[in-house]
């Protein structure tokens, strides 16, 4: 018996040798079985806590004025609020790097952080009405770049060696007094004001950018497809009808007290338990969701606004979202995008103020007319 076992193990080890390269140990995927997994509350190890408890400092008015003056001389005047990029040039910022390589298919470039500012209709050239969501690329700067060797995420995908670097992008400049000293230290390298929101984008090392580089809406082109990741609207504890779209039960015909309930959740017998993933009442919304393959209809380069097709981008109005090139294989761009990003200093011709996709009707175009078919 033991002999058989020994031979078996030797065969196994032999077959292991035949396997190509890397040893794969499978880790249980957390939350994979859940339909609606809880949001991960893991704080990145390298990122200090941003906010502290605000208490009354009793700072004299002269000193408050002095602090404001110092911040302004160092970072420039605060934004007007209409999404203009702050014109301040940080003393630490280096010259933007020239693109070292041409774009090739399969290369990944950075994304941007955008603010959802509303929804309104647009018309296509064939007369159909579509709803578009307005996304404002709000004061985006590159904060830090981590090379593939340096970048070690908390959850590693199996044991495959990481080939992608990580670029940290920040959005919406804030008053440094609102943050902790440690958090403000994160922005020393890039020399920009502390940002309200930071985002992590995995990029190919060729697409790396110098810290302090601003990102604009012209990073994308109209007609491109993007993925948008945002936190959905928090709807609180909801029943099955609202949360999962159940039908409910009749209003009358002898039904009592079970008009909006889910009904049966499983049978007894051999498996007398509730099956995992059963749709039941619970907390709805406030989850990170990715919406893939959204088309860009129009871009305004003055106010850095992107019009994306569809009204159903996750999140409330005035919430921040991540936008990056789509991962859907059929919707990837065939022509070169702005690589590694749109840099006005490098670009020969500055882009126009309004960029439109081909099939979108511009508001200052003449009325749409249909031509009669001639047989």
């Amino acid at each position, binding site marked *: 018996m033991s002999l058989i076992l020994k031979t078996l193990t030797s065969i196994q080890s032999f077959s292991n040798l035949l396997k190509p390269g890397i040893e794969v140990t499978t880790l249980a995927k957390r939350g994979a079985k859940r339909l609606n997994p809880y949001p991960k509350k893991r704080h990145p190890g390298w990122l200090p806590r941003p906010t502290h408890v605000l208490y009354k400092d009793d700072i004299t008015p002269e000193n408050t004025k002095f602090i404001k003056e110092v911040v302004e001389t160092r970072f420039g005047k605060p934004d007007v*609020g*209409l*999404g203009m990029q702050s014109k301040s040039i940080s003393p630490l910022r280096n010259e933007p790097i020239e693109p070292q390589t041409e774009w090739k298919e399969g290369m990944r470039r950075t994304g941007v952080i955008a603010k959802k*500012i*509303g929804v*309104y*209709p647009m*018309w296509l050239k064939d*007369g159909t*009405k579509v709803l578009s969501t*307005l996304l*404002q690329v709000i004061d985006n700067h590159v904060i830090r770049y981590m090379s593939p060797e340096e970048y070690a995420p908390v959850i590693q995908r199996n044991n495959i060696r990481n080939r992608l670097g990580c670029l940290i992008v920040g959005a919406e400049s804030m008053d440094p007094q609102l943050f902790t000293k440690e958090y403000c230290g994160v922005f020393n390298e890039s020399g920009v004001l502390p940002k309200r929101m930071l985002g992590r984008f995995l990029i190919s090392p060729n697409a790396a950018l110098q810290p302090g580089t601003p990102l604009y809406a012209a990073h994308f082109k109209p007609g491109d497809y993007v993925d948008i990741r945002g936190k959905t609207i928090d709807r609180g504890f909801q029943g099955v009808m609202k949360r999962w779209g159940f039908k409910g039960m009749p209003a009358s015909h002898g039904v009592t007290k079970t008009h909006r309930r889910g009904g049966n959740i499983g049978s007894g017998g051999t498996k007398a338990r509730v099956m995992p993933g059963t749709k039941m009442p619970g907390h709805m919304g406030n989850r990170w969701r990715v919406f893939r393959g959204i088309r860009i209809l129009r871009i*305004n380069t003055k*106010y850095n*606004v992107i019009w994306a097709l569809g009204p159903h981008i996750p999140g*409330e*109005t*005035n919430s921040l979202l991540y936008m990056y090139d789509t991962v859907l294989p059929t919707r990837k761009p065939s022509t070169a995008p702005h690589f590694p990003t749109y840099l006005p200093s490098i670009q020969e011709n500055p882009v126009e103020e309004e960029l439109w996709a081909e099939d979108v*009707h*511009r*508001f*200052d*175009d*003449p*009325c*749409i*007319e*249909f*031509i*009669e078919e001639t047989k």
Partner: protein
Amino acid sequence: MHGALKMSAAVGRVLSQQMRQSLKVLKSLAGKKNRCFSASVPIPKEGSVSNNEQKSVNRGKSADPLECRFMYPEFLPDPKPEYRNSLREKLERADMMARRSKIDIPEFYVGSILAVTVSDPHAPGKSNRFVGICIKRSGCGLRANFILRNVVDNQGVEVLYELYDPTIQKIDCLRLEKRLDNELLYLRDAPEEYSTFSFDMEPEIIPEGTPVPVNDLKVTLKPQPWLEKWERKDLKGVRDIVVNQKREMKAKAALKPWEKYDLMKIYRETIPEEEQKEIFAEVYSDLHNLEITRQKMKRQRTFIRPKKSG
């Protein structure tokens, strides 16, 4: 009578103020004949109209940009704070002005009679014209829309149009007037003659600078059943609504007399004066220029016409 109306409109510009007055009377007489109401319907007298005029806004340009809110209510954003964003509102207004520079969207109110020409891929000539009374105006920004109602071949027809839809080729205001209510949805339950308008109606011209006339016509509803509980709506344009005792009691129970005093409810429904000033200061000059060009065009049109007929 049509000829007289045309002539009076054409010559009216050049004539003296006195002559104008007399012509106005003549025109109002002509207008009465044109109306499609049956003889039993009382037509508002000249005096009653002028009483109401004092409240209404002066036509064309007004000294105060704030008065624009009656003429262009769609420029005010949705007051719901969850949906508001100053940049989006600004961009939306810019798009609205871009569209307005391409198509002449006239001043109109609920109760005005409009003719809308749209490019329609289904129609044989690829364009379609509909005439009707505006019974509702809603939506803000680029979503602004209005409903036209007419009775064609004894069949009530209603069409919903979007104001900024690029397939709309032309919007004509055939008769500019206001009614007593903000919504005329009760015309669905009124006799047909109140919403019957001829498709080849001539546009009526109101002299510049006069306020928009308010038509204080009161309709009588058809007997029940109705589409809505009209007795609860506090309608000014409907003559004595009579319902049975039970419905009367229920209507009384559903009354909310405190709502007109609810200051915060009103505040949450409106855009404050300061914000309105900002909004209209941005678009006022453009709107004003468009208004002037439209009036010029109108004048040219009216001068050309007699030559054609002659």
